[in-house]
């Protein structure tokens, strides 16, 4: 009976995961290697991949830095009132509760070219909506909780005693963070980064609304695939999709390797 269930599980997962990837690969190779290469190296594809790359790098850097800082403040700062902490905690979870499309819409409504702020910035030469900055903000919003939620539980678990011990030995907060806190949260930050990068690669709804999906200007890999499918340009769609899928699988494998390094470190 158990073997039946195990077999069934494998079949379901096969259908959900493996078959689509195989199908995408097959679609990308429809016109052979040349078709695949052309699909990938066409100017729209290259630009879209570059946009995705830029967004992934910038958003991950910003969210890692501010995520770790905010996590430390929310867990450790004694001078923050508990009500304020609770409020900030709920705000951190907001992007999970809200649909990415709503997030994108929020940005358009707050910073679009018809709003005061948007118009002001526009006159200074900085376009927010329908340009890279808006896409960055949208992706920042959507991936904001990921690093924080990885780091906060670990900070709570390790407690303050080691840090207090470091203070008694003469270490000020910066030294204490680098030599005592960071080694404990290092791997959770890695997990958070991996999750953030994956999310950036796959972000669609918020970016679509904010960017307007303008070819050669604000198109990302995901919105390119979307457009290609609409226009029946399937080779290009499949090629880019395959690259995205490969990247995701690569990240997953990296995460598994990181986990094994972490457990090795713990029992080493």
């Amino acid at each position: 009976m158990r073997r039946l269930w195990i077999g069934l599980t494998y079949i379901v997962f096969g259908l959900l995961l493996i078959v689509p990837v195989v199908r995408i690969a097959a679609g990308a190779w429809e016109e052979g290697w040349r078709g695949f290469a052309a699909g990938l190296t066409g100017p729209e594809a290259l630009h879209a991949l570059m946009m995705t790359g830029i967004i992934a790098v910038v958003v991950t850097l910003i969210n890692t830095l501010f995520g770790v800082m905010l996590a430390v403040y929310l867990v450790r700062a004694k001078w923050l009132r508990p009500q304020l902490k609770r409020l900030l905690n709920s705000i951190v979870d907001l992007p999970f509760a809200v649909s990415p499309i709503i997030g994108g819409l929020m940005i358009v409504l707050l910073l679009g070219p018809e709003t005061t702020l948007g118009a002001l910035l526009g006159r200074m030469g900085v376009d927010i909506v329908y340009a890279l900055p808006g896409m960055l903000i949208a992706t920042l919003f959507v991936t904001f909780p990921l690093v924080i939620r990885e780091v906060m539980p670990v900070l709570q678990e390790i407690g303050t005693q080691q840090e207090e011990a470091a203070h008694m030995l003469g270490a000020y907060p910066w030294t204490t963070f680098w030599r005592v806190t960071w080694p404990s949260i290092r791997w959770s930050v890695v997990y958070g980064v991996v999750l953030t990068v994956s999310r950036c690669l796959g972000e669609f709804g918020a970016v679509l609304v904010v960017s307007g999906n303008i070819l050669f200007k604000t198109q990302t890999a995901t919105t390119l695939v979307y457009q290609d499918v609409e226009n029946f340009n399937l080779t290009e769609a499949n090629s880019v999709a395959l690259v995205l899928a490969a990247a995701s699988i690569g990240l997953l494998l990296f995460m598994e390797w990181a986990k094994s390094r972490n457990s090795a470190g713990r029992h080493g």
Partner: protein
Amino acid sequence: MHVEVRGLNKKFGEFQAVTDVHFTIEKGQLIGLLGPSGGGKTSILRMLAGLEQPDSGDILFHGQRVNDLPPQERGIGFVFQNYALFKHMTVAENIAFGLQVKKWPKAKIKARVDELVELTGLAGFEKRYPHQLSGGQRQRVAFARALAPEPQLLLLDEPFAAIDAKIRHELRSWLREMIDRLGITSIFVTHDQDEAIEVADEIMIINKGRLEQKGTPWEIYKDPKTPFVASFIGESTVIENIASLRGFEDVSAWPGTRALIRPEYIEVGFKEDFTQLLSATEKGRVSHVHFRGSEWLVEVEVGENKLVTYRSLEKDVLREGDEVLVLVHRAYLFNDNDSWVMENKLKAGPIAFEI
């Protein structure tokens, strides 16, 4: 380091943890902060360390007010209850941490670490990580780490609470010896009376945020200043009507006075055991006996009073129901106004006289 504390107060939310505490500690003394859990001992220790800020009051080291000095600059070694060792560093790195922060030259750091490893008996364990050590070893690393930067004051927060009983005894003597050798002023928090009595030069009894008494173990034992102190050390019995006991009839002159009688103040036995003081004894009946490992705990009923005493293993074993003679040597008496120790009047005897 000469430590002085004046008028210390600390409130956590609605809870008054420490109320109006004053004390002075001479350089080189080993002081025990003793009291029940939640009494405020750890709060006082943490305020001395700078890990908590008092609501009011002054803390002075060598006569200088240090309230505004951060913990990093107070020159204090702190040993935490759960060791708080740096999990990602080896034993040697843990010990060296304080010295690296102070930017000592590498050679000097190595020399000091080797010295401390030798001192704490951890030779051979320098490259181990904390999770590879036993509880006693971890505690010794915590000591070594706290002592490395040559602090002037050593604070220990229930250092032996998480260690099993046998090792605890060894570590206690080791700590006493170590601190005597180094001559460093030390304050440790404990809720274990035996530990405080055995290790400390002086004990401060802290209860409900107040300092009840400060004195040598002997002073606290012989001359308790408050009922709490009298009852805290040892296993005393509370007697409501002390005047009903032979030799204490005079107490009825002070109505409302109750008594605490320590087990050590009571002697129990048969006629042969009491040669001189037979007239001061009265009849009692053994109601319970408990074996305590190193002695018997005997519960005796004298009239309407239940008394508790110890009995050596050398003497004949008493059994429940035995009729025995009971002598109460002295009692600690207290009422709303006063508290004092009173000897059994009949001990003086008709033959004794004063010159």
